[in-house]
């Protein structure tokens, strides 16, 4: 057998171009269905796992897919905001613990997730270095963000400006890194966490500047008993420090401060059901169960996968026919060689053995290539969940 294997190998090696084309065709035909299957499986596992851990999401009425994907995976979207007072109103009901989420901003391309300490407790995030972001202007980094940006506690991170040419909008905020979380294998690894108050500073709703009594008189437009009108030329602080933290304040109604969504963690399934019914019945907000939204979403994904399976099946079938024809023609072209080997004393059906072994070699190499290509695709393809 080793002699026949040697001959099969030498024949394949001697006809490099033909062998390479065959290997490429078979590898491609295997790569398509393998990758589609693996991606669908990975997509399925990732989406379901995160959804299953999250009992209920509450947000403004609108697209429930956007709300779910934004709340679970921080997918960029333009969600209608939920006023902060809704959080307080729901909390009064006592049916669940509510976690605020604000996700409008990014820092060097990574989503800034403004929330409360309940979020990190709920997701089980633990600092590998430093601590949670508890103070205004502080951030705690997901493991992937910290690694990619090379940041550690004590370093600074600038938020991405949202309106580069609108000078009425607040500039980028320089935030201090308070801690870095351990890798969790979830979208949390790719997020920058901060307190919701920091998000409101980023929104421009809250700001800090020199105390009214210390403002240069040239910037004061008018002074009343309870208020001072100042020029727009007054510089707001672009960084929260221990010295200026006390000067940060809101001008509007704090009850209307915006949130993107709320995570609701009911005490029981019954409380969850009652809460969901109550919120949806009221109509000014929507409550969604992530697992059912994801199930709907995966229905679409698996319809796409079925299409890829069909295409992959055709590709595989066509390639199998091509390979069959190539080896059939090869066996005819090699009839004289087989006759020689037969007369020299090779085992019966040496021809079938040689062709079969060469086919097996091609399949093995193609299979290894397709496996490697599938692994590389899964490794290097951008996160499908966040780009869906």
């Amino acid at each position, binding site marked *: *057998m*080793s*002699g*026949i294997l*040697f*001959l099969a190998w*030498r*024949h394949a*090696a*001697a*006809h490099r171009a033909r062998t390479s084309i065959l290997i490429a065709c078979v590898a491609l035909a295997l790569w398509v269905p393998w990758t589609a299957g693996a991606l669908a499986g990975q997509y399925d596992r990732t989406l379901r796992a995160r959804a299953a851990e999250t009992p209920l999401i509450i947000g403004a009425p609108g697209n429930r897919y956007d709300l779910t994907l934004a709340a679970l995976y921080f997918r960029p979207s333009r969600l209608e905001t939920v006023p902060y007072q809704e959080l307080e109103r729901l909390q009064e009901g006592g049916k669940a613990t509510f976690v605020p989420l604000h996700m409008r901003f990014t820092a060097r391309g990574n989503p800034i997730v403004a929330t409360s300490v309940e979020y990190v407790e709920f997701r089980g995030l633990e600092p590998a270095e430093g601590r949670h972001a508890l103070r205004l202007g502080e951030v705690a980094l997901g493991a992937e963000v910290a690694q990619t940006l090379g940041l550690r506690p004590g370093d600074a991170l600038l938020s991405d400006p949202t309106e580069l040419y609108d000078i009425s909008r607040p500039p980028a905020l320089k935030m201090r890194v308070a801690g870095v979380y351990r890798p969790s294998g979830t979208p949390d690894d790719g997020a920058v966490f901060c307190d919701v108050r920091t998000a409101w500073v980023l929104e421009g709703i809250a700001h800090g500047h020199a105390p009214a009594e210390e403002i240069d008189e040239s910037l004061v437009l008018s002074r009343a008993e309870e208020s001072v009108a100042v020029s727009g030329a007054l510089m707001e602080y672009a960084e929260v420090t221990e010295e200026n933290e006390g000067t940060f304040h809101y001008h509007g109604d704090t009850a209307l401060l915006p949130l993107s969504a709320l995570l609701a963690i009911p005490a029981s399934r019954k409380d969850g059901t009652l809460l969901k019914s109550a919120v949806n019945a009221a109509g000014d907000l929507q409550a969604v169960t992530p697992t059912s939204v994801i199930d709907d979403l995966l229905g679409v994904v698996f319809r796409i996968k079925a299409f890829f399976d069909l295409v992959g099946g055709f590709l595989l079938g066509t390639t199998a026919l091509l390979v069959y024809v190539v080896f059939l023609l090869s066996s005819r072209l090699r009839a*004289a*060689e087989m006759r*020689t*080997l*037969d*007369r*020299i*004393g*090779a*085992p*019966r059906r*040496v021809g079938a053995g040689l062709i079969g072994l060469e086919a097996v070699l091609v399949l093995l190499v193609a299979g290894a290539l397709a496996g490697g290509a599938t692994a590389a695709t899964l490794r290097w393809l951008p996160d499908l969940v966040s780009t869906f």
Partner: protein
Amino acid sequence: MTSDAAPDARPAGASLRGVSFSYAPSAGTRPFRLEVDELTLHAGEAAAVIGPSGSGKTTLVHLCAGILVPASGELAVGGVRLDQLTDAERRRERARQVGLVFQEFELLDYLSALENILVPLRVRGATREELRAGRVRATELAQAVGIADLLGRTPAQLSQGERQRVAIARALVTEPALVLCDEPTGNLDPDAASGAVDLLLQEARARGAALLMVTHDHGLLDRFDRVLDVTALAGSGGATP
């Protein structure tokens, strides 16, 4: 049958006794029958086989090689009765005991000269040690037939005469008891043919192998120990085309 006296003292390389073989007649072909009463080739003995086209020369070679199986009679190579073996056993014996040289040389174009010489060992599933020893023998044979510098070349990179020498080395590498040549000089010019036959006879004799060569070139016959007319192998005419 014409022959010189065979040296009886030597062991038999091949022997056929009362062998009968026939091709079944089929549409468009004539029936063919070959009978051999008695034929013994001793170790180191060289015999030429002559006869008109279609008289059964190649059939005789194939019978001696165990490629064809006689309907009756005894056929032995190197003391092993091929007619009593199964197909698989006969193939193993052929790879071990019989060296073959063909008219078209029939080298494998994707192998080097050295790899071609070692093909009989490869196809019989030789062990690593056997292959190692075979490589040493192949190198010696290549030296002997004058192609030591060409072992890395493929058949396409060799001349006709060089391919012939590779084929001769391939036939001898297993140190066979019997070397069978089916018109091995048919594609060579007279000088090259003469040189190839001399080489084959010299190497076969040097290794104590019996040699049976089919040839149409009567100018070469005086170099053989015996000349066999295939039509006279049986008492009243060996082959019936």
